[in-house]
């Protein structure tokens, strides 16, 4: 496996960096996309996009922006996994695939153990899971499982909120009684926690849940733990936030950042032809771009085992595997340094972009 290829044929790494710089600086509106990287990689990528007056997007932006849209249009209550673990006496898991989105969830939230703080300490933890998939239904002993499809989740949350507020719902008496019983459990929680992933909830469902949180907090304490998107989405979003003020889907065409979730969506930019060159970064798992056009110049930074037949490819290492990497940690809700588990000398995303940046004219701030 070559470290750099052009249309499938090996080229020297130094030439690859020069060629990448030529493609990107020659473009009218280059795109930095994928952005599956650690914080250092995101930082380098955003500085490159800024330097080139291009745009940047992350491959899991749909999920990230679902949460951010609720935050910035409505507001949000959150806590750390550790506080949920120590205090959560009523933990409501919402939707399928939470253990896929966060493989360590059951262990980290210690759902099978009692909470350790407050009057609820050592009392059994109530766990409710709405719409788990497959084995998830049996994952937490004693959990109350409420079957629901992904499509039904919004309706379930809406019905809970309506009944919490004492409003009627168009459901049979038996169902209403079940909902009322559940709502009573929420009301009686001392420190309740919703756990969700935006991969299965749309912004309106998240807002419904957060609206219920606000109403619950009128008399008790209730909050939420959200599960971040794949490929380093949360860390990339934080870096984008302090560097530009905005999350991904931000462009620099005017020489300053503008954030627009529609205008700077990567797939649309490529398929519409607005972007005329793309740097695709997917250092965690080699995910491929979702766009359909194959006729714009493409540079790929990935840990691929097979090089793509089209475009320029530069092999990079995997964050936290082949090199030390700062990542947002789902278990703490904060940034942490992950030491390399299998170090190699493959360049990190930050190093590869640093080498490309060095070929772009203006003196770089790195």
């Amino acid at each position, binding site marked *: 496996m070559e470290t750099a290829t052009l249309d499938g044929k090996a080229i020297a790494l130094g030439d690859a960096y020069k060629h990448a710089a030529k493609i990107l600086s020659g473009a009218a509106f280059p795109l930095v996309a994928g952005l599956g990287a650690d914080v250092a990689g995101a930082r380098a990528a955003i500085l490159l996009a800024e330097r080139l007056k291009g745009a940047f997007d992350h491959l899991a932006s749909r999920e990230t922006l679902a949460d951010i849209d609720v935050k910035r249009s409505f507001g949000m209550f959150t806590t750390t996994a550790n506080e949920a673990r120590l205090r959560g006496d009523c933990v409501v898991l919402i939707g399928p695939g939470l253990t896929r989105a966060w493989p360590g969830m059951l262990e980290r939230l210690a759902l099978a153990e009692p909470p350790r703080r407050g009057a609820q300490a050592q009392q059994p933890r109530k766990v409710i899971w709405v719409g788990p998939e497959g084995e998830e239904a049996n994952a937490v002993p004693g959990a109350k499982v409420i079957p629901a499809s992904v499509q039904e989740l919004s309706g379930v949350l809406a019905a809970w909120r309506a009944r919490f507020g004492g409003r009627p719902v168009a459901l049979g008496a038996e169902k209403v009684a079940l909902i009322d019983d559940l709502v009573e459990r929420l009301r009686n929680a001392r*420190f309740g926690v919703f756990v969700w992933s935006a991969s299965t909830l749309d912004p309106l469902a998240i807002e419904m849940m957060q609206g219920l949180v606000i109403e619950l907090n009128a008399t008790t304490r209730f909050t939420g733990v959200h599960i971040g998107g794949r490929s380093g989405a949360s860390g990339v979003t934080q870096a984008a936030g302090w560097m530009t*003020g905005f999350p991904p889907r931000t462009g620099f065409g005017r*020489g*300053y950042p503008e954030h627009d979730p529609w205008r700077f969506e990567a797939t649309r930019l490529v398929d519409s032809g607005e972007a005329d060159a793309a740097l695709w970064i997917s250092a965690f798992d080699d995910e491929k771009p979702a766009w359909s056009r194959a006729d714009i110049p493409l540079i790929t930074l990935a840990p691929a085992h097979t090089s793509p037949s089209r475009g320029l490819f530069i092999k990079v290492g995997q964050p936290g595997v082949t090199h030390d990497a700062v990542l947002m940690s789902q278990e*703490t809700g904060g940034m942490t340094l992950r030491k390399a588990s299998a170090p190699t000398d493959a360049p990190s995303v930050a190093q590869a972009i640093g080498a490309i940046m060095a070929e772009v004219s203006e003196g770089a*701030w790195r």
Partner: protein
Amino acid sequence: MALTVLRGGHIVDPATGQDAIGDVWFEDGRIVERPEGRSADHEIDVSGHIVMAGAIDIHSHIAGGNVNTARLLLPELHRAIRARLADTPLSTAKWSSYETGRLYAQMGFTTVVEPAMAPHHALQTHLEFNDVPIIDKGALTVLGNDDFLLGMLRDGETDGAINDYVAQTVENTRSLGLKCINPGGVEAFKENMRAFGLDDVVPFYGLTSRQIFQALQKSTQAVGIAHPLHLHMNNLGLAGNIDTALATIDAAQGLPLHLAHVQFYAYGKEGKNGFSSAGALFAEKINANKNVSVDVGQVMFSDTVTISSDVLKQFNSLPGAIPKKGAIFDGDANGGGIVPYAYKISNYYNAIQWAAGLELFLLIDNPEQVFFTTDHPNGGPFTTYPELFALLMSADLRAQHLARLPADVLEHTTLPSISREYTLYEIAQMSRSGAAKLFGFVDRGRLSPGAVADIAVYKPGRDVAGMFRRAALVFKDGALIVRDGQVSHYTRGKTLHIRPRYDQRITNRLDSYYDDLYGLPRSIFDVPDAALPHKDAFAEVPCRI
């Protein structure tokens, strides 16, 4: 670096008592004596200009997870409008870490302290610092709602053990000292208490706020942290909370204590709105207690956002949010609450707040006991400092503002009767010499030989605010980085921190604690050098002992 002389400026340097025309020499990033037998490589004529040390902001929320949440919460508050100049990436990206460095530098500020770093989120604060160009940064570590400390106090552990924990936490999070935010009150909020005063008891710990902050105050002294405990008191923003403030000063037992953003505690209950300025009473108390220093947290009329680790207070503020949204984060200890707000000159309460802050500035006698913050961005953005300095320096300007306030405000503040005008020397005491003393900085905030060559040169004129907003020249570590109020390029400032000593056995004990409670290695919260993009990010400041 070349030998440079700034020739013929009006030097205002309270640390050395200078307030006269003179020259300032520097070389290799430090101020030097005029060298015998050598001539300057660069001679810059600054006649007709004011020359001061670079300013130090002692309390400004510029970095960390809560600040970043505020950025993401309020895209409408910071739309960029102007393309950046060459060699300054992201410098016009509003509210970015880069713009923060540029704007501070342009005002002649060269050191800024972020006052609220959560121990479990220290790495993000340091990563953000890394992307604040030019200026030097430092942080205060937040303790006082953390289970480990509260548990130690409840169990009656020795002062020695508490001191070790404090010192280990400050060293490990790489900060300049300690802050305590609504001690015990944030923990109490998790237990569903909605108000928390100085003598309320934290459930399950049996401790009062008073006991918690007194313990941290003592510990801060014992481990040799130069900066006194930096306290965010209980009952922030509530009518009648002057009682809390006065009682807190009494509780300080004569030991050093810094009270943060005191304007937010200078409220009586007079008048038909039950809300009045108690600024005069508060100032009198501060004048009588030399162990206490304060920063004001001045309200400046503007659209802004409140960012605080006082989660209880921020939760209670949500219904008054403008626009109506907010983020409430129940963190491992303190967490944070982000609530947008708009201070309006036509609003009775906001006008009282504005007046109370100015009363504190003008009625506290010693300019090295009171600092000029707006608690950025809580009372207003740091970019309003120039307007604030102008207000302090001109009774006429204050009178113009007073005329625009709701009429009944004037009955509940002493501000109209105050004629004091700050001199440039007093401004420099507050923003340079006093600020340096407050943190134990011996080589900044002054222009004496050996000091860091952080120098601000201002062109005086009728527009006092304009003079402070656009420094004529700013040198950082001897390098010219601002000319005519414009940053020409970036340099990389340092992150200042202290390393108090402690018994290493506390580290083993903490390892077991994290393992038992969280099932996580304590090191997951560390700030290792390898996590930061640059090896030379830090500079150590000596401890007091």
